[in-house]
């Protein structure tokens, strides 16, 4: 994907904390101070993630694993609808 197309797509992307509950998304970008830690635990670009709950600590599933993560971490994950 060209960088312009990626930029346009990122413009329409949401953070995981903004994303709607109960829906499935694809991760477009992981950016922020904890991005390495997030990638290592499974939040990598292209992965599909389903957000299960909202709140200060949100629940989501990624590759069949349930993870709880705080809002400041979820803010570092940009997603688009899958």
């Amino acid at each position, binding site marked *: 994907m060209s960088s312009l197309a990626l930029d346009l797509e990122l413009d329409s992307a949401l953070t995981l904390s903004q994303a709607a509950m109960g829906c499935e998304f694809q991760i477009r970008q992981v950016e922020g101070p904890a991005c390495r830690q997030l990638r290592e635990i*499974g939040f990598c670009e292209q*992965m599909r993630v389903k957000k299960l709950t909202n709140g200060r600590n949100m629940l989501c599933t*990624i590759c*069949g*694993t*349930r*993870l709880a993560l*705080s809002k400041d*971490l979820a803010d570092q994950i940009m997603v688009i609808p899958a």
Partner: protein
Amino acid sequence: MSTQSSEACVALVGHPNTGKTTLFNALTGQNQKIGNYTGVTVEKRSGDFFTPHGKKIELVDLPGCYSLIPNSPDEAVTRDALLGDLSEEETPDLVLCVLDAANLERHLYLLQQVLDLGCPVLAVLNKVDLAEQMGLRIDPAQLSKDFDIPFIAISGNKQRGVTQLKQAIRFPLPQAPGRCWQGSPEIEKTLKHLEKTLAEQNIPRPAAHAIQALSDPTYEVGNLTAPTGLDEQISKKRFEIIQAAIDNGVRRPDQSPLSLTDKLDHWLLHPFWGWAFFSVLMFTVFWSIFRFAETPMGWIESLQTATQNWIGSFMSEGDFKSLIIDGIIAGVGGVLVFLPQIILLFFFISLLESSGYMARAAYLMDGIMNKVGLSGKSFLPLLSGYACAIPGIMATRTIPNAKERLATILILPWTSCTARLPVYVLIIPLMVTGTFAQGAALFGIYALGTITALLTAKILKPRLGAAEAPQFILELPPYHRPQISYILKQVWERASAFLKKAGTVILGLSIILWFLDTYPKSDSDDPVVQQAASFNGKIGKAIEPIVAPLGWDSRMGTAMIASFAAREVFRSSLAISYATDEEEEETLRAQLTASTRKDGSMLYTPLVGLSIIIFFIYALQCLPTTAVVRRETNSWKWALAQLGGMTLFAYLAALIVYQTGLLLGFT
């Protein structure tokens, strides 16, 4: 690189919750030993097993980690073990990389990192049965081709595939395939340069150290300054390889139906029902500890009395008989009687862990923990503290934030450990009657300790220096049927540790206490006069002015001093000192109920009982804990401040409770 007796050293590597330890147990059976890695307080679990060809293999279970870029001291041990940087530890001849087949995408990154270090690797696809249930189609042959290493599918829980795995660990061991990706010219050039520099500095395995140094800017090796900024590129390269391997070898169903875990979590993590369940569950645990332990405790007490009578029947009167009956049997028996409660507590903790609920409890507790500046990550160490402060303090190593970890260590001894249980169980029935009320009192004691600990964390945390807000990320494993073998193993380990303590430390202290209670001898036959003349009587008299404002007599004061070596000794000490009284009561509790002050008033009133309990909730009477805190914080300052602070707090709290009680008209 193997030890003299074994022919190869094999290391187990994997994420937490991948079933690594289950596989370790399945392979090694009973041939295990637990030690520590030199210089660090990380537990080392190793064992032996034989391949079908009769070759002896040493298996080391390395601490679980998500990546070789460590976030905690545990994870650093895994990295150093693979790089051969641990002194006195051998570099593994083969690495068994345990991957969760149900979440393969997340686990391949660690495998990729291990391969990049140039280790010979055998990939173990665990939980294949679970993956099949989820509708996943995994092609191990394709994965083997992509990564150029064998992939063995097993189900550790059901012991399926373990024999095939043993057969795969055959000699000659698999060769290291090495790095299976080519970086940008900049990366390759830098790697070559680093490798050359490290080789010149005589660093073993320079290629492995070079890739590690380039992937992790915080990693230090030799006199090397690795350029920063390339780690992101390396990480992206690795993910590209993984993504391609997943596309080739794994097919996921488009829509997965709601699993049992989804349905259970809907209720158990609910903002209201989740908490309701958690509270009821915790209360049930404490109630059960009282209720179900009653009968076996009665048996142990009867056995103790019968043994005392039986031995007493054929021994002539004298100091030796007194040592055996009043010293050893009363002292050790007084502590052994709590074995059923300790077994029950560990049974419940292991049950919750094994069923997958414990992580949910951490999730629920994160909200509360956050209000006091901690995170849900502190919950598991604090909960372990209810069993024993030492493993609890060691478990804080999983907390990445240093300030949060220190605050957790400092408050942890206020979560009441099992050593306090004998004291609580002895004193509570002197205060309230009825199993329900006693269960509620025990629950209240635990709640009081916990609430004080959390409030202290809130006060303490900002004073420990500025730190970033704790970030919370936690894996919630699927619920599964508790593994009875795991539970029994945990209970057995803890019960045998308790019995060992009773047979060594408590036996020794019981003999010393008996000696201090018996000598020097007085001319009088009156036990009260004899007690006053003994060393203990004198110590008790000396500290009576200090403990009298708490409502205690000199014997309680002596028992309290003795309990600083180990809390359980409080009960032994009372058992020994009251065993010499005139009253021929059967149990210690009956002896305490019957004991009086000099003016004839009852000694163990509910208010005195409360004062004792308050002291025991807050006092840090455990020298091994202080030693572990010193080791974990690497500072005597924190360890001694904790010991002094908690003792002073305990004294003042007991003083306030007793004196306020008196003012309010309680006796």
